[in-house]
């Protein structure tokens, strides 16, 4: 649907706009009313296809969203009459038919809180823990993001039929296992929300960190994750981590253009051309971080966003406040201990207090057999040894990092640094 827009044709433009702005809203409500994910999705798809013909014949309606809602509901009624397998079919049919006959006082477009509730229901259902992580990601992108199965498959380097099966299977599990379509109760909410944020951040990272695959679609993943992050801020404004994640993604994404040079080479943060940073995104990210911190409920996304903010706000790389960054990594390690956080803390300490202090923190990590083939550890080790003036040991560490690197762009940079030692 999103691919075939002819800007000169007002009808196809209007349909594309309605698809982008209204589809997830209409779908979220219809899933609740029809009680079945697949059926609701098929009905909404039918409605958009019907819109192309009807709007060309009768003109674009004044309220495209309301038109799509009504059309999708009627398609759902037709489909429910034919499909006996849907749970509580008779009740669903009665409810949909009742809504159809009283559509004069259409509540769905005016009632903001009903829309908010349905979208939250959809998000929490797509990210339900009884679905596998890849299924949660795919379903979220498909239903909330409106990406086609082909686009999601290309972004995750998976064959389209494989991705199609993954999505169909997830929807069938929701129906067969009776995964509820609701916002979790207060006592489960913190856990479940963490799960949702993890899915959104995973989508972002897939787009941001990857250096292979279709670059354009990858960029779309970042945009989609940010859009989801902003949506969560609107839907759950009282949760600090929701704002923290949105801030983190915006601050990372602001530097997207500066991360790769014109020849396709990866550029480290301290060497990036700061004029390429997106100042609007930075301002938006910083504002959201401030909003998060005012809620006084620290969390891992806020801490990571605060670290990124300090790196961005330094007037030049040498003026970065590494001591404060090291402190924030310490807080992050207490909240959510992981070797990756420890490694980053060691690097920050090395830059704040001198390479010897950083190397001391790296010692236990280098002795951990589970991290023996973790490339970033050896690259950081090499960097600290080089700063400490031990060129021989640094060269050895660079060679280990180069041998472990699976990525051409990264390997080229490590080789350049190795060469600069001599």
């Amino acid at each position, binding site marked *: 649907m999103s691919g075939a827009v002819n800007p000169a044709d007002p009808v196809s433009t209007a349909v594309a706009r309605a698809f982008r702005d209204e589809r997830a809203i209409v779908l979220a409500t219809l899933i609740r009313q029809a009680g079945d994910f697949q059926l609701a999705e098929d009905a909404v798809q039918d409605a958009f296809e019907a819109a192309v013909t009807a709007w060309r014949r009768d003109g674009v309606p004044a309220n495209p969203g309301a038109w799509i809602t009504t059309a999708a509901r009627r398609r759902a009624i037709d489909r429910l009459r034919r499909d*006996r397998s849907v749970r509580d079919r008779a009740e669903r049919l009665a409810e949909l038919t009742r809504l159809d006959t009283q559509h004069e006082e259409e509540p769905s477009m005016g009632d903001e809180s009903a829309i908010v509730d349905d979208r939250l229901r959809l998000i929490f259902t797509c990210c339900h823990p*009884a*679905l*596998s992580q890849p299924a949660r990601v795919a379903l979220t992108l498909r239903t909330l993001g409106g990406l086609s199965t082909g686009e999601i498959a290309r972004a995750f380097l998976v064959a389209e039929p494989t991705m199609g099966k993954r999505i169909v299977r997830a929807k069938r599990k929701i129906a*067969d*296992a*009776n995964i*509820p379509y609701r916002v979790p109760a207060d006592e489960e909410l913190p856990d479940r929300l963490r799960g949702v944020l993890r899915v959104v951040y995973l989508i972002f990272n897939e787009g941001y960190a990857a250096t292979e695959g279709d670059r354009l679609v990858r960029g779309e993943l970042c945009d989609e994750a940010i859009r989801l992050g902003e949506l969560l801020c609107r839907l759950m404004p009282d949760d600090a981590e929701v704002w923290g994640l949105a801030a983190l993604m915006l601050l990372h994404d602001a530097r997207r253009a500066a991360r790769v040079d014109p020849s396709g080479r990866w550029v480290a943060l301290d060497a990036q051309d700061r004029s390429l940073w997106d100042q609007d995104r930075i301002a938006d990210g910083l504002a959201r971080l401030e909003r998060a911190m005012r809620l006084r409920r620290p969390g891992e996304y806020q801490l990571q966003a605060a670290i990124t903010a300090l790196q961005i706000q330094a007037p030049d790389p040498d003026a970065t406040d590494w001591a404060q960054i090291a402190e924030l990594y310490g807080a992050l390690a207490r909240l959510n201990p992981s070797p990756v956080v420890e490694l980053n803390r060691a690097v920050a300490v090395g830059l704040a207090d001198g390479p010897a202090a950083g190397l001391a923190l790296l010692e236990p990590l280098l002795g951990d057999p589970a991290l023996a083939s973790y490339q970033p550890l050896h690259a950081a080790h090499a960097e600290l040894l080089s700063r400490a003036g031990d060129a021989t040991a640094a060269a050895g560490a660079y060679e280990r990092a180069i041998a472990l690197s699976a990525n051409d762009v990264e390997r080229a940079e490590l080789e350049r640094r190795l060469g600069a030692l001599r």
Partner: protein
Amino acid sequence: MSRYMLLVYQQEVDPAEQAEREAELPMLLEFHRSLREAGLLVGVGRLRSTESATSVRVRDRETEITDGPFAVTKEVLVGYYILECADLDEALKQAARFPDARHGTVEVRPVMPPDEWVNRARDAGADLPDEAVKDLA
């Protein structure tokens, strides 16, 4: 008298072959009837496919929920519960309360409602009276 549980194992097959099996429901109902007449049948239930299964474990007081059936070959089936729950969340919550979830796995598999069972057989061509639903409850 002693109680026994009969566990039925089958390979999951493609839709065409599955439809042939669905159409055999009248034979199965005949079997149920004879068991009932002999006063032997306590309960019967058909499980949905393993694709709709969810596994629950509790480790260090944290509930771990995973998509899919249990897969550790060293664990063996030691018991069963049939719960009537509002939805999967309720079933998972109760599964996590089961004391053995701390050292084993509780697999939560939805039971197919009898009317859906009958509808599938009808879709596959079996001729069944409405009372058949009662024989599957």
